[in-house]
């Protein structure tokens, strides 16, 4: 009995590979993100201080939130 391609892909493990590759890419992206934040911490300590310990007395735009780009590299 002939099987539909999606089922054959499942038995072949292709789907599993796809999930694995996706997970690796995600992890790589997360790692890169972490690296960039680390660089931010190293090269722009004043700004990062404002991120982790927001000071209500400091008006925007100096107060950063995580949704804003990192001032050191521009990456969100």
């Amino acid at each position, binding site marked *: 009995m002939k099987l539909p391609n999606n089922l054959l892909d*499942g038995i072949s493990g292709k789907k599993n590979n796809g999930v694995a590759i996706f997970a690796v890419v995600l992890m790589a992206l997360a790692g890169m993100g972490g690296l960039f934040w680390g660089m931010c911490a190293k090269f722009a300590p004043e700004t990062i201080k404002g991120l982790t310990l927001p000071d209500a007395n400091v008006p925007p735009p100096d107060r950063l939130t995580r949704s804003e780009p990192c001032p050191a590299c521009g990456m969100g």
Partner: protein
Amino acid sequence: MTEIFAGLSMMPEDDFRESVYPVFEEGIVDWIEWSFDMGWGERGVPSWLDGLLSFYGSEGRLSGHGVQYSAMSDKWTTVQDRWLENLKIEVASRQYAHISEHFGFARAGDYTFAAPFPVPLCKRAVETGQENLQRIHRITGGPVGIENLAMAFGTRDVEDQGRFLDSLVAPINGFLVLDIHNIHCQSINFGIPILELIQSYPLERVMEIHISGGSFSESKMGYTDKSIRRDTHDGPVPSELFTLLPDVLKLCPNAKVVLLERLGNTFSNKASKKEFANEFRDLKKIVSKVNEKRAITGGAVPFEVPFQREMTNWVRENTDTGGNVDPQCLEELQSTLFMLLADNRKNAESIKDELKRDKRFTSVSDYIDSMELRMLEVGQELIKKWGVKTVN
């Protein structure tokens, strides 16, 4: 004309999946079977297998094979109630062509589950098994069958099993799953020609045939010099079983499917995976040849023909000659046997002695006499390997 299908008993493990991929890709797997209660635990059913079950179910080519019901346990427990509740959900969610379980008791005393063990043929045991199979039948509404057991304590278990199974499924007009490797084990262990043994079964009831491999074990206590054949599903199919299969199919006019079995996590290398795929190709060729011959001779009887049989006389004979047992005896025999087999301080001789001396079991003393020490030793190994105790 009933066409016979060649199929696979599916396992969720990755090595099994890898081994069977080529034969699915070739489009030669006609049927699959799923031991559905394996998927009820935390592990669940892998997505690749779930999709396959749905597909084969929608094509009417999926059978269900329970493992953990313990159809011959004399004591009914909440575990069986839960099993039946899960079965309701299972048959509502997948389209099974038929459902089967194993002969034997695997639950007794402190044990929630162990391997299936044989039961002495007596009226009480027949009634217990009939009732337990009827419970499945009431839920599924479709054909319900039972598979013959490899494990036997002695020749008496081997000789009685065919008529025992016949009587168990008679009230529900059920079918027999004939596992020819299980019979191969008994043939080797008890020195009975395999075809002679096969012919002691109600072959017109056979709808499904299982074929698998196994292994040999030795008696550590020296009860026998001969190796004991075990139904371990972890090795190649003995070539003689493939040779025998066409003859068996001739004897089983209502056979609908032949399924190749092997456990997951038993493929040690690429060669063993290839070997299993090749075994399936061999099976497919044999089944195709039988189908061609049937098409020419028109030899098969359609399964749909009902095969309701009268209860055989042996039940009455057995009762009349005092072979019937006290209602409590069977439950106590099952729980005592498990307790003794699991006791590390005991050997097969002391187990048999204790059973013989126990006055509760006087009515089955002939059966206890028939138990062989080497097979009681196998029983000890089985319960130590598979036994799961009730958590209090």
